[in-house]
């Protein structure tokens, strides 16, 4: 039992906070009645995940998570909600009444299965801790050497996405 009032203790507490943030955010995101609250929940969840990344020793990815997911994706979704003008509370479900419980059941089973798998499996840790482990410099090098092809492809995908969304969004504008 480590003390709460040490650096490790506090960081452990913070980690618990991140777990809470992530799960609460995710639950809000899927269950909130108003869309805009869902997005807010999603943002919380992303912040929590960024915290995990920080604990996983990759602050760069953590910051990118905040920059792209919170500052980019969430903001864009909020903007879309504004455009579609639908923060309106979800209408009464027109799904079959069974869909809700069924979804719960299916996802519950999935979680049970996956978590069970994760906990039961013997993970062969090949941990070899390196001092400059996964720094930005490493990342950059890998991106431009080993993964340069995928890096280029990603940029093409992004370009296509930008052009595509512009085309889609402009439709109906020119009258």
């Amino acid at each position, binding site marked *: 039992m*480590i003390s709460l009032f040490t650096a490790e*203790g506090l*960081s*452990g507490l913070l*980690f*618990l906070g991140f*777990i809470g943030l*992530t*799960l609460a955010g*995710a639950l809000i*995101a*899927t269950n909130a009645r108003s869309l805009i609250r*869902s*997005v807010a929940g*999603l943002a919380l*969840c*992303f912040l929590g*995940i960024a915290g995990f990344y920080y604990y*996983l020793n*990759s602050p*760069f*990815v953590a910051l*990118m998570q905040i920059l*792209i*997911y919170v500052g980019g994706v969430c903001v*864009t*979704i909020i*903007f*879309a909600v504004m455009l*579609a003008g639908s923060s309106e509370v979800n209408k009464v479900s027109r799904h079959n009444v069974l869909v*809700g419980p*069924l*979804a*719960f059941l*299916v*996802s519950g089973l*999935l*979680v049970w299965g*996956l*978590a069970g798998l*994760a*906990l039961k499996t013997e993970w062969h*840790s*090949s941990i*070899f801790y*390196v001092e400059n*482990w*996964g720094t930005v410099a*490493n*990342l950059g090098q*890998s*991106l431009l050497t080993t993964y340069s092809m995928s890096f280029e492809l*990603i940029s093409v995908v992004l370009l296509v*996405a930008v052009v*595509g*969304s*512009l085309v*889609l*969004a402009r439709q*109906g504008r020119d009258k």
Partner: protein
Amino acid sequence: MMDILLLSNSLHTYLVIAALLFGIGIYGLVQRQNFIGMLISAELILSGASLNFMAFNHFLAPDPTVGQIFTLFIMAIAAAEVAIALSIIIAVYRNYKSIDTEDVTDLQG
């Protein structure tokens, strides 16, 4: 006894959380009936996957960067996906004045 304050050092923690995120995402995807809601759920699923990548990378991988790079790629893809999806949603909204899945029935023939 497992020290609750040392959770951050265990691979299992991350995997379970990722599984939970995945599950919540699936639940939302099925249960939500509006496009943006579904998009949000899809983001959760992607996040679960990224978290797995990162955790494996940290605890198991021989190459210290591969997980991070995959996560970065997922982020880029997610951003592109969101952009496209939202512009489709806006386009759909213009035509149907709704972003509810069930109102968009023309495609079902």
